[in-house]
């Protein structure tokens, strides 16, 4: 069968491969090369070595954005996963109205980042002005917590669905056996259910972690980095380096930042997958 299939390989893999080459491989390789160049368009690139990287590390705004992104991601990953897991526990108890609750909690996930950002910008600004605090454009603390609330609102439903699927896959005889052996509900949760849903935890931390690091739309729509770049996350910082400034020195630096950002995201997701995969149990 393999040989017969191989004869048709152009039909089966070529369309996807060509689009993939145009949409990912070529831009990726060219981007990696351009990070070593000075350029304003792709045509006028001039090789300059690692100068862009040195200047990227010297950019204090880039480092601030890095720490802001880390602070945001750590808190949002923890909050989203804990709350989503609690929601999933409540929704697997066969309560009345479970379907309605599930539908409602998942709903924000379908709304795009830009629209979500504006909804919460309006809402948060109204609340801030009612309590007499400075609005989002002047208030970095509110911007930070606003982003976290927004991401919780958007992602808890999604992660909850994954946790529900995980919890429902835990066989009943396991929990029953634990109860017969005298385990309290808390012990059953921590010692039986939690290890059994470890694959769901792996996926959810992976998704929330990468979503947190890569966050762009919500950042742009909610705070746009205001006040004075204090709420600018890495992805948005790179975007601004590329498009908000003119001059031959910026685009190369932006591309160097993008390469660093890419290495960072890939490395973190590999580490995370390795760390949580090792805790998964086989049934």
């Amino acid at each position, binding site marked *: 069968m393999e040989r017969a299939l191989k004869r048709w390989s152009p039909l089966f893999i070529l369309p996807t491969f060509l689009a993939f080459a145009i949409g990912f491989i070529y831009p990726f390789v060219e981007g990696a090369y*351009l990070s070593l160049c000075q350029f304003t368009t792709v045509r006028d690139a001039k090789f300059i070595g690692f100068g862009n990287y040195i200047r990227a590390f010297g950019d204090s705004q880039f480092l601030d954005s890095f720490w802001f992104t880390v602070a945001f991601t750590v808190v949002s990953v923890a909050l989203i996963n804990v709350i989503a897991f609690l929601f999933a526990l409540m929704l697997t108890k066969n309560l009345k109205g479970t379907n309605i609750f599930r*539908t409602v909690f998942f709903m924000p996930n379908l709304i795009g980042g*830009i629209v979500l950002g504006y909804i919460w910008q*309006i809402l948060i600004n109204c609340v801030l002005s009612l309590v007499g605090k400075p609005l989002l454009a002047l208030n970095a603390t509110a911007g930070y917590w606003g982003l976290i609330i927004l991401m919780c609102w958007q992602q808890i439903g999604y992660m909850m669905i994954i946790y529900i699927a995980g919890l429902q896959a835990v066989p009943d005889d396991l929990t029953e056996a634990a109860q017969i052996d005298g385990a309290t509900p808390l012990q059953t949760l921590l010692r039986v259910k939690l290890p059994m849903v470890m694959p769901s935890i792996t996926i959810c931390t992976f998704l929330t972690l990468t979503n947190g690091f*890569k966050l762009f739309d919500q950042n742009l729509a909610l705070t746009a980095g205001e006040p004075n770049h204090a709420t600018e996350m890495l992805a948005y910082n790179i975007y601004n380096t590329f498009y908000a400034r003119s001059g031959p020195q910026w685009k190369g630096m932006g591309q160097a930042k993008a390469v660093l950002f890419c290495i960072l995201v890939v490395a973190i997701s590999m580490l995370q997958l390795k760390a949580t995969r090792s805790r998964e149990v086989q049934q």
Partner: protein
Amino acid sequence: MTKKKTAVNGLLIALLTALSVAWVYPVFMILMNTLKTERAITTSTAFLLPTAETFAGVQNYVSAIVSQGFLQALGYSLLITFTSVALILICCSMCAWYITRVKGWVSKILYFLFVLSMVVPFQMVMFTLSSTADMLKLNTPWNICVIYLGFGAGLAVFMFCGFVRSVPLEVEEASMIDGCNPVQTFFLIVLPMLKPTLVSVGILEAMWVWNDYLLPTLVLDIKKYMTIPMLIQRFRGSFGRVEMGPMMACIMLTIIPIIIVYLAGQKYIIKGVAAGAVKG
């Protein structure tokens, strides 16, 4: 014991109800304000229901549709989402079947690259991608789907591969022995079995393409073509003072179709998301 249990369950339901109300409130608040006149939308009255004096009817919606180019953006968004998702589903399922069934270094390298592309942030390729798209004239709503196929291939191939592996090889071999060529085998035997995965992948990719902001902004000519997220974002930039009424009406017009589609197909959507995650 049972009495205590019903009391606990009652409390949980009350808690979940309160949370649900809180979950819906942001959307409800926007809806409420779209029905008010421009002057009545101030920060101090934003949380009040519209009254007889401040009720504006559908005026904000009319202005959003007539003067803000909403319908055009909606058309482009629909066009791009539909063509991209259709292309992704057909091409990626074929590709995934091939690289799962034909072992060898080509398949291995391709699979690795597809998985890598899921993790790589868009900022890494955004500048070079937009220049490549310009060069190849892929910068109109009619053919931007090629770019989406390239960039969405990672997730789709990954999910299809996960499913194809669980399909028994014997069925396909039987059809080959009965005289089907690989194309017939794929479209008559494999594709029908892939239906649940097609739905999952279709939903995930459609959610992504429909809501995507940065890719169309960088690739499309913004003066000629605008998708819905681009339209919403434009309100902030180019208008001197933002007209809150029409802007919020635009937001509502964006959300309402999504909610209708969601309520109609929520079973598939929620199942699709769960299945996608388990395969991941």
